[in-house]
């Protein structure tokens, strides 16, 4: 049924019902139904209801709520920030006294925050969140705005402010929906600040007070990951002898591993010329073909990025190739030895080429934007983006790991040599949400570094002979591909 017909039907129904109910009541009915549709996953029906309110019941007191729902739909379902912004701005401008207005400011801030990590934009988002607190102090959106402020401060690197904003949520609104999220945020910030034990206590608050919330299992993963590293005087990893995944050719010539937050393990095997997924319960899913596979990464939206020599596959169908400008105008040179690629939170694609020894930046339309982070040559075989938007780069040429921000500023590095370790043949790198860095070295085994660059532990043992790829599961367990054993090992 087209939207127009639906509208007509809704209006007809409305006029029929009008003998008994007021337009306000009818609009409220449509709104309630729309929200029920949303919960049931009937997204289109929900959107039709909301649009009907906006077009057919524009004078009722449900319009602001309908616009808010439309904005959320555009933001969360259609992933269309421009349309979402348009809807939220309508609420803020046309209905500044409505219940929906603080929600609109909240979402406008969230849209800005999601768009970039640039300081000015973060400030802009913070201003939106502050507006919610200042103009609508009694609104249910205040704790959400406070929580979002905490996230914004974290993104800006202002950890103390982030902790304060987050703590205000559970101090002043301990039973709001935002409270468990705020605990999580504070725990996360404390971990980033190098305070893992207070971080664990903060995560544990979610387990104790919000057992049924969606944050509780995530908190358990975070505590587990932190406790493994910081719970005892020395980190403790144990090889999980019972762990077994994949079989046959899939486990031959494995180039990369990637575990998604949902627990799906992707194995990039050049032997079977595919990237093969295994679900959390160990079942193999639909594979993605690829030749001369390199690294794997996750795009900000959750899509798999599989680098191959000539291009990068984004999700199951989108294959992108990249070219850089040459001296001859209009004659670009394609990249032919792609070794790694990542997508930044702002949507730029960073592509490392083994032949040119450079990382190139491309915009979402694959337009060349320049070199990253600078013009120095690097033999980059692995890249990943940490939870804070840092670009982690493994340079085999210098046998080191460097972390840059999106603008190319060096944030920290793991040099070839340091206290208690030396990198010989680093092959893969992974970072957990708390910025602990895990490095696979063909000769040195698995090395785990704190966010401050200190070696926490070196994993080795008879079962680990030649690691060539690694990834982390959500609870911080290390999954390593051993080239000699042709199997994936798990250290938990």
């Amino acid at each position, binding site marked *: 049924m087209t939207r127009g017909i639906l509208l007509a039907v809704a209006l007809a129904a409305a006029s029929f019902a009008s003998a008994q109910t007021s337009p306000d009541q009818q609009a409220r009915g449509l709104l309630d139904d729309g929200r029920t549709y949303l919960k049931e996953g009937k997204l289109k029906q929900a959107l039709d209801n909301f649009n009907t309110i906006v077009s057919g019941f524009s004078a009722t007191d449900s319009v602001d709520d309908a616009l808010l729902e439309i904005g959320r739909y555009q933001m969360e379902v259609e992933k269309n920030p421009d349309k979402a912004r348009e809807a939220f701005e309508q609420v803020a401008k046309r209905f500044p006294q409505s219940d929906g207005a603080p929600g609109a400011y909240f979402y406008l801030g969230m849209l800005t925050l999601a768009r970039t990590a640039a300081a000015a934009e973060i400030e802009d988002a913070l201003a939106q969140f502050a507006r919610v607190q200042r103009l609508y102090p009694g609104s249910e959106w205040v704790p959400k705005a406070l929580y979002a402020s905490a996230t914004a401060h974290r993104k800006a690197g202002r950890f103390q402010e982030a*902790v304060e904003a987050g703590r205000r949520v559970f101090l002043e609104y*301990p039973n709001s929906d935002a409270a468990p999220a705020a605990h999580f945020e504070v725990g996360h910030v404390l971990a980033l600040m190098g305070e893992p034990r207070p971080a664990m206590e903060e995560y544990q608050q979610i387990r104790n007070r919000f057992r049924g919330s969606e944050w509780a299992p995530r908190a358990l993963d975070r505590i587990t990951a932190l406790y*493994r590293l910081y719970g005892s005087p020395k980190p403790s990893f144990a090889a999980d002898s019972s762990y077994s995944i994949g079989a046959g050719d899939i486990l031959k010539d494995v180039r990369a591993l990637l575990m998604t937050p949902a627990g799906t393990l992707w194995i990039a095997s050049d032997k079977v010329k595919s990237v093969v997924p295994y679900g959390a319960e160990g079942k193999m899913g639909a594979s993605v073909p690829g030749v001369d596979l390199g690294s794997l990464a996750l795009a900000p939206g959750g899509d798999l990025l599989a680098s191959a020599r000539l291009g990068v596959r984004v999700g199951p169908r989108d294959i992108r190739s990249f070219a850089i400008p040459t001296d001859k105008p209009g004659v670009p040179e394609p990249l032919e030895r792609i070794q790694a690629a990542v997508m930044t939170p702002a949507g730029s694609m960073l592509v490392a080429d083994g032949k040119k020894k450079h990382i190139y930046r491309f915009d979402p339309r694959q337009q060349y934007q320049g070199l990253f982070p600078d013009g120095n040559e690097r033999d980059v075989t692995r890249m990943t983006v940490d939870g804070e938007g840092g670009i982690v780069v493994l340079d085999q040429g210098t046998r080191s790991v460097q972390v840059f921000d999106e603008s190319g500023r060096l944030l920290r590095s793991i040099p070839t040599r340091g206290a208690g370790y030396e990198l010989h043949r680093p092959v893969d790198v992974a970072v957990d949400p708390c910025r602990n860095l895990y490095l696979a070295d063909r000769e040195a085994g698995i090395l785990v570094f704190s966010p401050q660059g200190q070696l926490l532990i070196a994993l080795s043992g008879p079962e680990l002979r030649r690691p060539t790829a690694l990834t982390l599961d959500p609870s911080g367990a290390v999954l390593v591909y051993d080239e000699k054993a042709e199997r994936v090992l798990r250290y938990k």
Partner: protein
Amino acid sequence: MSRLVVRWGRLAGLAFLLAPLAGAQEPAAQPPLSEAVQKELGSVQDLLARGTAEFEGSQQSRSIVVFDEIVTRLEAVRRQGTLPPRGREILAQAFELRGRAYYNIGLQEKAADSFRSLVQLSPQYGISREKVSPKVVDYFNSIKKALVGYIAVSTKPPGARVSLNGEFLSLTDFFPLEVLAGEYTVEIVRDGYQTETRSLSIASRATETLQVELKRTLASAFFITEPAAVDIFVDGQQRATTAGALSPELIPVVRAKGLEPSRASARTEVANLSLGSHVVEFRKKCHETVRKTIEVLEPRDYDTEPLRMEESLASLRLRSDPPGARIFVDGEALGVTPKEIEGVCSGKHRIEVKHASGKFLQDVVLEKNESVTIDCPIRPSLAFLGVVAESAAAEGAQSDADEKIVQNLSKITSLNFLVAPRETVDRILDAERLTRKSLIPGAGTDPDLLRKVTEKMAAALEVQGFLIASLPEEKLRRTASLHLLAAGNTVADRWNVTFTEAASYLRFNEMVNQHATVYRPWTGLVTVDTLLHEGVPVLRVVPGSPAAQAGLQPGEILVAVDGKPVKQTADFLSAISQKKAKDRAALLFRGASGTRSVELIIAQTPQEIPLNEPSLLYNKVMMDLRQQVEGYPGSEAAAYARLNLAICAMHFGDYAAAHEHLLKAKSELPQRPGISQGTALYYLGVALERLGYKKEALDAYRGAAAAKDATLFNNDGPAVAALASRRAAS
């Protein structure tokens, strides 16, 4: 029995004067008046007033018409047999005044008619010479003498009822009374004696005398008790109470029976006992009840054996939480708790223990020599102020809602729920020109006035909080909003119920019955959940805590509490939350070197009330906290309660009240790690900031930032210092 008739003309005048006295001896039971008769009486009363005014005026003759109307109307009632004594009085006065009015205008025949009617109505009626002309009085008396004779009756024993033609005359013995001359049947009745009947002819101006010896048919029993004032029940009916002092001649008898004559009662009669067996019970407060059986074989007097009543006392030991509460036993003030009260009479008593923060109420039955200890938990009292309708349409449901709400809220156990006396509430509200609606949020009442009024009402009603219900404008008229308001607070908690459905109150009652405490059980053991272990690893041990005292260390894995497995921290917390301070908990740990058991003695940690917790009724929480503050002044518990009162005030946005509480809490709270002075300083900064005192807020934040070990929430909570520093900086 003999009959003696005597002429007694000389005494007639004396008898006349005594007649009203004699008539007053028999209190005649009056049948209830019908509405019509009452109305008629009221009307003729007015007429009499008018007629009397006319009579005393210059045109006395005009009054005759009025008296005629009175006579006509009351005679009509009299003919129906429903004329009450007051009606007879009015009729008699009307006859008298009409007669005098006729006499004064020279119509003596008419006057005689009226006086004749008067004497026939009331033969003992007299007209005083002091107020009325002697001529008129003589004229009246001459008419009366021609109409009346006299009768005198005496009986052995006296006290018998005498009726003439079925109409009560007097109790024997009486002097001659005036009666209309004529033929009479005289009936003499006395309980316990055979009824005697005589026929008698009374001539005008003559006196007839009857002397009758009554024949006994029932018995009497006589009792002496030590002490006096003992209620005597015969066959379950109270018949007498011993009283007075023992007559001298009985002293030897009583002494011989082992009683103390000076404490013994007079010989007290219980008359009219039928022949046969009777159960007699002797009851006196604070004494053991005695039961005896007496056999009445013939109609005579029986003297029973003097009886000494044994005292029956018990003792009460009353303790209260908080102590220092005033004790009332059956309304009598008996000191303050804790107290042991000796010599309390056995039997049923109402114990009331009152404190500024609430009261305790219980009925007890004490046995002789029993020593009863009662713990008296003081509960705040909640006064129900009634139901208000928010619209005219809702007014119809008010009474039903009132009844249902009282019925359902009476099930609250954590508070004394009572219905406030309407007049007291109205008086206090009227004095401030407020109504019940003014107490409901949104009424726009000045908060300071609201605070003042609720405090006044609380003092008058001896309660700590109020509940008022409102009926919103609603088609179905099912919803009632319950507004719970602590005395001295300015914003009520609102809760909607479907007032007709008992189930609808359950959640509200449950929330009211939650008791807010400033402490919770505490071990100081901080554990976390991981996917790495079977149990939960210890992350931190709070210094000075029971866990630290037991030597527990981070890294140990807690696997069981009191024999129950601990799979996640929530299991451990749940087990501890069910314990009290000083309880023991058996913890089992697994470590590298095997398992070990540790016994912890549970301590307690102060805890904050969450600032916004939907499952709390903050006004009820405030009532509980005030109980701590007022019940244990100067204690740490009171200081923590004060801090939480401030948080409650902040919950309602009442930062001025919060500030007041925090200033006190700051000086009362200890200076030590955990919830302490630094905590109060932090919140003081928040309150001052909200009130717009930025400089003072900054000082408070700086003070909090300096309190390095102070925490929020509880002793395991986050540090205040970092938060305060940030606030100070911003």
